[in-house]
Every structure is written in C-alpha cells, then in structure tokens.
C-alpha cells in the first residue's frame, strides 16, 4: 500500500486504476500481478486480501476490478465467484454482507453489488447466452429499499445500518451502490430500475472506477495524448 507497508489486493486495484486512467500501464509494470490476484480467490469463490485468506467483499471487488483492467478476468473461476457474491445479498434486509454469516452493511452495496456488472460483462464476453439484457444478477429493488429505508441519516449522509453514525465512507459507498442498483448496462442497453419517485434516480457510475463514466472517458482521452513514460533512466 505504501513503501514498507502491507501488501494486499487493494493496492493492486489502486495501481491498476491509476495506471490505466493515466496511460502509464505497461505489461512490465503488472508482470505477475494478475496471477497473484487469481491466487487470492479461495474455495468460497470470493477473493481474500492475500492468497490463503478468507473471501471478503472489499477485497473481492478490488481483485475483480483490477483483473478487468488488466483484461485477465478469465484467470478467475467466475462461476464460483458469481455463486459467492449472489449468496451475500441478505434475504431479509436486501443489502449485502461482507462475508458469510456476518451482518449487512451499507458499504457492501457497492463492493458486493458492484461485482455483478463486472461479472455480467466478463460472462457476456465469453458468449454466455443465459445472461439477462435488462437486469443485473442481484435483486436491484431490494438493495435500493435497504439503502433508502435503512441507511439514511435524518440529518443527511448515509451509514452502515440503523443505529450507526454517518460518515463519508458509508455515504460514498451507499450512494455508489444505489447507482449500480438503479442502472443496468449503458447506451442502447441502458435500463433504469428506480425505486420510489423518479427523483431518487442517481447518475450512473462506472463499475470499475466508481466515478462517472464520462469522467473515465475524458481522463483516458486526455492522457492518451501523452506518451507512456519510459522507465529506463535515460
């Protein structure tokens, strides 16, 4: 994560995210990274912080998104990942838990639910004919219910679950999850599923970078103007 700091799958995602947006991504920079991330997937189907660790929503998102950026999603067992993440949506609350047998938490609205657009895309690229053309593979309305009914602080901001206090982290990821749940696909295939009044509808978010899709496009365009920096000391 930083010089002398801990090593886990989050840093791979941060690096891939930054490098791809700023056009400094080279094969050498990420040599071996995709294979290492794949080793973080465990018997549960989800991904842990480092190889051998328990599957965890936050790490799973980071791992999957990093592999999407590196175009190596096929290194994962996508089916068991799909099985694991869909099992994390709570049948009573509608929100997601971070790991098996734990409590629901608003922030996993993004970390977990955000995996489904990525999986959808990866499976579609493989030619899977069973994929829906209108919905993600989770209960989008139930998630929206949880976020809107349980995760809002009356004074503004969002939170983990009723009884917890608000913070920026939960505000960010509850809203990001809400955006994911409201918008399927893009362009011709865009399908909005909005719970409640139309004003509840948020702007869509990019499922890999979690910023507005237009911003991603602009960043990429901007940095493509510059050559990839040379790592050799000239």
């Amino acid at each position, binding site marked *: 994560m930083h010089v*002398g*700091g*801990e090593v886990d799958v989050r840093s791979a995602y941060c690096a891939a995210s930054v490098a791809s947006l700023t056009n400094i991504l080279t094969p050498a920079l990420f040599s071996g990274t995709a294979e290492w991330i794949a080793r973080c*997937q*465990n*018997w*549960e189907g989800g991904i*842990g*912080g*480092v190889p*051998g*660790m*328990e599957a*965890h929503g936050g790490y799973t998102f980071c791992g999957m998104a990093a592999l999407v950026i590196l175009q190596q999603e*096929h290194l994962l*067992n996508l*089916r*068991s990942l799909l099985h694991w993440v869909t099992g994390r949506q709570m049948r009573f609350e509608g929100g997601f838990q971070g*790991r*098996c*047998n*734990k409590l629901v938490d608003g922030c996993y609205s993004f970390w977990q639910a955000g995996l489904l657009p990525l999986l959808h895309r990866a499976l579609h690229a*493989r030619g899977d004919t069973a994929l829906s053309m209108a919905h993600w593979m989770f209960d989008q309305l139930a998630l929206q219910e949880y976020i809107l009914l349980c995760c809002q602080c009356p004074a503004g901001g969002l939170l983990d679950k009723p009884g917890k206090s608000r913070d920026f982290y939960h505000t960010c990821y509850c809203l990001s999850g809400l955006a994911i749940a409201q918008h399927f696909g893009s362009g011709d295939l865009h399908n909005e599923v909005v719970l409640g009044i139309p004003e509840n509808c948020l702007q869509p978010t990019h499922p890999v970078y979690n910023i507005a899709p237009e911003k991603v496009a602009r960043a990429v365009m901007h940095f493509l103007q510059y050559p990839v920096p040379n790592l050799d000391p000239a």
Partner: protein
Amino acid sequence: DEIGLIPCPEARYNRSPIVLVENKLGVESWCVKFLLPYVHNKLLLYRQRKQWLNKDELIDITCTLLLLNPDFTTAWNVRKELILSGTLNPLKDLHLGKLALTKFPKSPETWIHRRWVLQQLIQENSLPSLATKGNLGAAPVERIHRLVQEEMNVCSEAAGRYPSNYNAWSHRIWVLQHLAKLTVKVLLDELSSTKYWVSMHVSDHSGFHYRQFLLNSLIGRTVTDSNILVNEQNPNLQKEEESAGTEAACAEEQSVDLPRLLEEEMELCTELIDNYPGHETLWCHSDETLNNSHHSPATSHMAQSMDVDGLNEFSSKQGYTQETKRLKRAPMQDSLGPEMEYQFIDKVLSTCRDVDQARFATAYRKWLVTFLGQ
C-alpha cells in the same frame, strides 16, 4: 495484561485517572480528551523537527499514544526507527501490540506492525553470530517455536474479542506461513487446538475458514503442489504421489491420515449442525470439507471448479482438460459416502424447527446433487 477505558465523563475527585487493578490498566474516560491531543501534538512537533524528544521520551509518548489509538501509523513508524537504530527491543513492541489488542482487537495497524517486528526477529534469528538483545537465550528453533505459540495465543484472544476477526485470523495464517513454514506438526497441532474454539463460536466464519486453510495445507503437504496448475498432463499420478509421499515422510516424522482427518472434520460439522441449528457457516464448512474429501489431494481450488455445465469451454481456457481432471482423481474418494450425507440431510429436515436450518439443508442437498453428480 489488559487495558480498558473506564466510562467516567467527569473528574469527580482530584486524583489520577489511571487505575491499576490486578495487572489490568484502566484509564478514566474524562482524561482522554486532554491526554490524547497533548501527546499527539508532541509527537507531530517532533516529526516536524520543531521540538526534540529524546529516545526515552519517544518510547513513552508513542506507547501512550498507541494505547489510546493504535491505528496511528506514525507512532508505530517512530518505534520502527527506534528498533532499527537498536534503541528499542522489538519484543517490547510485541508486548505493546498485545496490550493494545486487548482493547482494539481489530486494529489493522497493530497487526501490520506486528508482522514487521516478527520479520525483523526472523532476520535476526537467521544470523549465525547473534548479539542478542538479551532475551532469547534458547536455540533458534526453540525461539521461533515460542514466538509462534505466543502469536497463536494473541490471535486466539483477539478472535475471541471480536466476532469473525478477519485481521486476527489473517495474522494467524501469516504466522504459520512465514514463521512456522507450514510443517505437518504445526498444522496438526493447530487443528486440534482450534477444535474447541470453533465449537464455541459456531458462527465465526473466519475460524472455520482457518480450519479449511489448515486442511488444504495438509492436503498440499501430502502431495507435492507442483502439479496444481497443470500445463502438462500427468498420467503417472500414482508414481508422483509415492515419491512425494516419501519426500514428505523424510521431512516430517508424522504421517498424515488425510481421509481420517476429513472424516473427523465432517463429524465435527455434523455434530455442530445438529446442536446449533441455523448457522450458515457450518453448512459452508461442511460443503467444502466434503468437496475436499471427494477429490484428489492434488486438486487445488482451481481444479475444484465446479463447472458442471459448459465444462469443456471453461476448462480449456483454464489450461486443463476433462482428461486431466479424470486422471487427477486419485483413489481417495468414497471414504465419505454421499449416502451418509443424504441421510443426515433427511434427518435434519424431518426434525428441525428452524427455518434457516431447513433452508441450508435443502440447499446442501441441491449442491450434493449438482456438484457431486451423485
């Protein structure tokens, strides 16, 4: 040996907020809002080179800070510098961390710093001529063993203080991987010593995941793990198992009765599921243990990919074929008959009154049918 905050919003008496009872340190909460900013500020001024602090002061200040807020990375980093310069005994940080974890059992920075300290100690240990810091008098192997045992204790305590303590269990795995080198002996010891703990914490997914890790490591130990990600076919699996077995037998004194271990694990699962209905973790653990027992020991999680449909397409992309999978099925199966599992499920469904339990049992049966193809 333990620290805690005493809820005490106002200083009623003119006396010290520190309370020490039976080796346990308590701090009255009213003083924190004065103490923490004071020491925090002092350290920051030192870091900004605006105010000098000598080594003893640094040790004191960082110690106080970290007991109030162990996620303050800068304070741990100051102590790293002190350790590297030889002024601070790394064992002190292990003790400080242990104390901090009694109040903050998850603290990521504490665990991370702990691993850094242990790495320092490993390096020290591997040096032939040791000018020891005066504490570890025993032989290197004995030293490492003691460290490992201590870490297992610290992890166990922290795991008991917070449910599904990801950081504590991750650390435990790390210690086994990097300090104990995953020897058969330590894996078996850990299996037996955590058995009681998981029985007392049946919803602790991390605890059961740890047992899966132990079992998987033992499976990996029994056969060489070089043939997991297969590029070449492996027609002579029998021969390889033998030579790997000999190798393992030479290295370790204990032989591993894997089928027996997996059977015991299934028995444990069954017993707990019966006694404590409705815990998803137990069913998950059961799934995976059965999975392990029905496939070749040479199989990793990759080869365990349960793609029943569209198998060929996926497998060829993952670098192995149906052919290889078939060959990898060593004669280790059928020690745990699925019929027993079906009987168990039927029994659970007919006797349970817990809705979740019924749901898990039904899902388990469905899984058995689909994934085991039986």
